[in-house]
């Protein structure tokens, strides 16, 4: 559900940043739950391809709806007062806001890892991914679990969308750009692997930064080339399980 990540930071233009960081992700989360409950669940029986195509349809609708309500111009979001300015780290000036994002993502990553690998809920989610029918037979409400997971995913996308809004501006095409990057990260890292996603996200970030520095013409191609090389060697990604 990448498009919802672009549409919510617009809340920002009305209120202050902290309020939108709190509210916008909740909104995307609820939206995700609704999409899962009323759309995706109905086509679950037709297989994964139908679900994929359905999300494409939802994406079209959100994308156009965003254009109707907010236009296709860029909207600007300012960094909150308390996070403005630079901080000196080892002789280099670094924006505080970017440090804040690094901190925020580390906290969320920690919570996610704890939730997935240390709690009963995490065990259920991981088991449900590998064999949903079996877990269902054990008396766990699988549709509810999937609904929760989808909502949590949309919530996280919303957090990321708000966090990135002051750095990039907000425009409908943001969804394409960010969605693409996250797809590549997930594919190369391997489906369902938190470690893989984290490591590959790092590599991709470095690749595109150094790419812009040294081969600016072909910087956008570097990530795709990286993906092609990895997939040629390991079709399921770095940490993906074989089918």
């Amino acid at each position, binding site marked *: 559900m990448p498009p919802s990540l672009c549409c919510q930071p617009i809340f920002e233009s009305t209120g202050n940043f902290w309020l939108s960081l709190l509210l916008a992700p909740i909104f995307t989360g609820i939206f995700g739950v609704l999409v899962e409950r009323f759309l995706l669940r109905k086509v679950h029986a037709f297989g994964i391809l139908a679900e994929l195509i359905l999300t494409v*349809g939802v994406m*079209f609708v959100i994308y156009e709806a965003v254009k109707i309500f907010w236009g296709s111009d860029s909207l600007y979001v300012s960094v909150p007062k308390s996070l403005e300015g630079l901080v000196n780290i080892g002789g280099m000036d670094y924006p505080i806001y970017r440090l804040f994002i690094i901190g925020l993502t580390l906290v969320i990553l920690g919570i996610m890892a704890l939730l997935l690998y240390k709690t009963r809920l995490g065990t259920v989610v991981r088991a449900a991914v590998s064999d949903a029918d079996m877990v269902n037979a054990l008396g766990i409400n699988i549709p509810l679990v999937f609904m929760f997971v989808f909502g949590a995913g949309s919530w996280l996308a919303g957090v990321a969308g708000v966090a990135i809004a002051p750095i990039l501006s907000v425009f409908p095409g943001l969804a394409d750009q960010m969605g693409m990057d996250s797809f590549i990260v997930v594919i190369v890292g391997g489906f369902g692997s938190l470690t893989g996603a984290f490591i590959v996200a790092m590599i991709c970030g470095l690749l595109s930064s150094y790419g812009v520095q040294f081969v600016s013409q072909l910087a956008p191609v570097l990530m795709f080339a990286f993906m092609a090389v990895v997939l040629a060697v390991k079709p399921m990604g770095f940490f993906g399980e074989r*089918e």
Partner: protein
Amino acid sequence: MINKRIKWILWAGILLVLVFYPRLFGTYFTNVFVIFAIFALYAVSFNLLLGYTGLLSFGHAMYFGAGGYATALALTHIEGCPLFVALLIGLLGSVALALVLCPIVGRLQHAAFAMVHLAFGMLMHVLALKLRNITGGEDGLGGFPIPPFNIPGVVSVDMVDPTNFYYFAVPVLGVSLWILWFFTKTPFGQIMVGVRDNAMRVGYMGFKVTQTRAVIYAFSAGFAGIAGSMYAMFQNLISANCLNIGNSFSPILMTMVGGVGSFFGPIWGSAIFSIIEELTTRYIEQVELVMGLILIIVIMFFPGGFTGLLGFIKEKWFGSQSGKTATEDIS
């Protein structure tokens, strides 16, 4: 017997309408029809992957674009390149691209296959934008000479005229569609459906599953290339827009709405979308909003698409057994 005769009369009628179509409807609707036919071939080639082999690609536009760019480059750089050679270069261009990608994508399935295609489609889009000296960047390649349809010593027909181009494009696209239809009826076409339904079993029967997928993949890419090449020649322009995500999604929409798994489904879908586009652009700008809503409704309530609905109505009102779709008669 009587059924067969009705079928022949129907085909003859369609042929007659097609022959006199430009005279009946004028230039504007002739152009609309050519675009419809191009996208019908594009969608049918896509359905060969999704409907028959069970491979969902989010980046089929790269083959459409590869065909278009190959033809445009050939016509720009080769002096006096004949019409059919340009078309053939378009076909070979996208088959070559497919053969390059085969080793990477051939082993993937389901969501991974779709996402990798999304990424490769974007890669091609970015390349078309960045390699300005070859592809012309955002402006694309345009204004290349369109060669006349030429049989030496017999006839030479100017192809810039849209009506003449119609008489060239429609037979070529029709023959392409017929070849694809014939392809699905061959024993190999049956294996293809087997690969979709139970790849492991097909493997145990001694057929090579990965290689089968690769051959179908190249085949499908080639016909998407013909569609793209025809599109480039028709518009006298190929730009990076042909490679964007929207153009990858349009055959998915057409196939789903027309009816996945049925050969004629995507053609119906292409027709439906041509009509919807004609109608909606008169009232609102957001054509994609309407298409997205239609897609959601179709997937949720009519998984068989338009052909499924037709079969359902036929069965209900006439009680005939023709509700079966073309691909279901294998097992």
